């Protein structure tokens, strides 16, 4: 897979993305301090609760007003603000290199956009590709955990260096990602979801780990609307499997129905498990997805 020559995101888009903040449905569970509300009590300006003073507590947090009224010592507790880890699962299998523009490019653009929003919100961004290309080891290492807005440029560059190849092993990759995560957080899955093994196991593992998941399914225009007719022997780019099919305009409608059915089943699976589901052709406008669909779904706001 060739590296991207053009920048992943335009300056105009970046400027608009800066306004957004990832909306977390749950309290952050990260141990690192950040800007997210968490269940942990700590230092911040947000009052959380009172508790009885015990010897050795910091006198600076005593509620003197309460002491005046009740003549008892209470300590004010504040919410600790923690970071929100954002994990980006990017499908880097061979099938992602198809399409015009390639699905993988689209996936990287979406990853970059979400990553940028997260970095701007002082959240930790993790990028995991599946399968991991050995040639990309250096970039993947750098992308394992990224934090802070100043890292965004480096983040984009590293994303741009990623390549595709091999078969996805979607379920395995997601299960490993779920297990290896220290804290659950936001998980964004960018894939065409066209794995012969299915997607249920992988997504189920993420759900079980407590991730707040969004699935962006990216399909190439050719997959949605094939334009090669006749007697075809189709070869799978990942498995090399052959499929003979006689296809013509008259069967286009039923093919579209098949694609719709596939997407619909995925959507239903996602909705029943509280997963946000988005579908986008690789040639669709990035703005439509980022500025409209993700906002409406309250991924960010």
């Amino acid at each position: 897979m060739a590296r991207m020559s053009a920048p992943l995101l335009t300056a105009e888009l970046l400027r608009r993305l800066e306004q957004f903040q990832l909306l977390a449905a749950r309290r952050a569970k990260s141990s690192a301090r950040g800007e997210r509300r968490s269940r942990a009590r700590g230092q911040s300006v947000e009052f959380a609760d009172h508790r009885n003073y015990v010897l050795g507590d910091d006198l600076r947090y005593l509620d003197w007003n309460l002491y005046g009224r009740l003549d008892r010592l209470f300590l004010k507790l504040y919410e600790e603000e923690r970071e929100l880890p954002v994990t980006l699962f990017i499908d880097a299998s061979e099938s992602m290199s198809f399409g015009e523009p390639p699905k993988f490019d689209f996936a990287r653009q979406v990853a970059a956009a979400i990553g940028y929003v997260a970095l701007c919100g002082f959240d930790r961004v993790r990028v995991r590709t599946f399968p991991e290309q050995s040639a990309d080891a250096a970039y993947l290492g750098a992308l394992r955990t990224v934090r802070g807005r100043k890292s965004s440029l480096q983040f984009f560059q590293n994303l741009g260096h990623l390549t595709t190849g091999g078969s996805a092993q979607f379920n395995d990759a997601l299960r490993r990602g779920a297990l290896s995560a220290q804290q659950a957080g936001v998980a964004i899955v960018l894939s065409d979801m066209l794995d012969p093994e299915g997607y249920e196991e992988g997504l189920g593992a993420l759900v079980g780990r407590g991730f707040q998941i969004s699935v962006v399914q990216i399909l190439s225009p050719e997959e949605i609307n094939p334009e090669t007719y006749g007697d075809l022997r189709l070869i799978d780019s990942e498995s090399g499997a052959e499929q003979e099919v006689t296809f013509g305009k008259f069967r286009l409608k039923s093919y579209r129905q098949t694609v719709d059915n596939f997407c619909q089943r995925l959507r239903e699976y996602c909705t029943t498990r509280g997963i946000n589901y988005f579908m986008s052709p690789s040639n669709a406008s990035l703005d439509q997805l980022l500025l409209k669909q993700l906002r409406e779904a309250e991924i960010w706001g």
Partner: protein
Amino acid sequence: MNFLEPAAFWFALALPVVVVFYLLKRKRVVKLISSTLLWQKFLAENQANAPFQKLRKNWLLFLQLLMLILVILALARPYFAAETKPTRLRVLVLDASASMQATDVKPSRAEEARAEALKFVDGLRDNESMIVLQVGAITEVKQSKTSEKAALRRAINDYKPTDSITRLDEALRLAETLIKNEQDPEIHLFSDGAFPFPEGFETKPLPLVYHRIGVSSDNAGITAMDVRANPDNAAQRAIFASVSNASSNVISGRLELSFNGQTMDVKAIEMKPKENVGKVFVVDQKTNGVFTLNLVVNDDLAIDNQASVISLLPQPIKVLLASSGNRFLEKAVKAAPNVQLSTTSDLRLSGGDYDVVVVDNVAPIEWPTANVLAINTWRTNWFGAIGKLEQPAIVDWKNTHPLLRFVNMQNVAINESLAVKAPPWALPLVESPQSPLVLAGELNNQRIVWVGFDTLASTWPLRVSFPIFIANAIDWLNPATSRAELLSVQAGMPFHFRFENPVSSATVTRPDGQETELVINTNTTEVLYGDTTKRGLYKLKTPDGETDFTVNLLDSGETDITPRDELPFGKNGRTIATTVQQANLEIWRWIALAGLVLLMFEWWFYHKRTA
């Protein structure tokens, strides 16, 4: 089961082609795609919708093969031999006369007639049968009654025009007997109508349908040719030719005379529409040989532009006159050209050395074997009862007969004559109401001219017609003349020849070089050869020597190739046979063909949809 058109099984070669089409289909375009997952689902879903898809594809092949086999079977036209109800008879009469060789329709009238007849056979219904006749000078049955179209087509393809005249009456009489007791029969005549319509059918309602062939009448031809001694100089030969123009245009050209292949004379000739022009050539002749006339004009029928006649050098005619004294007769015989006259009063006439014996007013004790001119006398076996007739009136004479050429009997009065009944071998030339006065004929190879009255008891010797008649009679009775006549036959007529000594074998060489060994009885003195359908010079070879004879058309009816729109059926025109019926064309084969084309189209369309 049998097949009328087994050749249609060649179409079976198309069966593998259909299979090949299906094999070709398996050649697929190889394409690398991201994932076949969606396609698998697509196929799975569609197969779920139509579980017989894979099977159906094969069914399509089977159906197509089955359809093709059916089409081929239909084309092969199978039939079962079974008892059927009586069929309606169609008698096909194909004109094979010389005029059918005219090229006014391309390639020729005969080919046109063949095509029309084949079309007619195509339209033959199942309950109809057909007989094919070919009519020229003789009528041939090309195919006896059948409804098998292949046999009929074979017979029609076998039809070939000859150089002979049309003798339609024979064919019609045959057809008439063939259609007797048939239900609803029809006689279909494919002809140009270039023949005198036969008589004798005026009152018979023949179901004749006439299919006219030919369009124009652009033709000129030689209709008569004769070689005789020059009347002015007996040492020379005069060749009389009659050329007629059948066309409605002026035709000009030239008439060439050649002797044994060497050109002797050329005369320019110009004929007005429908005109008949006579030409006379006078040449010296040194040896026996063949005179050939060649009419060089641009017309549609070539066969009548040439005629040949064999001319033998004139030999002195030895004539024996046995008479009771008749100076007029003696002078007249002497005046005839080339005559060596002897007179005798001996009534024992063996006549062995003489060519002609003239018996006048005496009754010989022994009759000669040579040709005889008998005046006022007879032989006992010639007639039955003989009576007397007082002053018979001459009512008719046949001036077309060579004996009466240029003879006028109008001013002849007769005092008394014998009254006889004309025997079957003789032709009455001059007739009174009660009895023939002059007879001519041939009895047992002996030519006889009989005059039934004493010429001295009539005014005839005083008339100019008398010496002419005597000269004609000497000429006609001369064996050389009769032999020369035998050597020229009309196309289609049998050639009949008599040898002086018996022969053991004989071979005829036709103008095209083909040789035919004649089947003859041992030690016969006569041969008969019938296959004279080709114009030209024939050679008859025997161990004793070689004799040439010529076959000519020389028929004004065939030369006039004008296609007739109507055939006047008999003198009274009771029935007019016209071109009214159009043969029904069989079309089911075309429909079957259309089915085949449709099948091809279906295949093409199927592939267009998937492409």
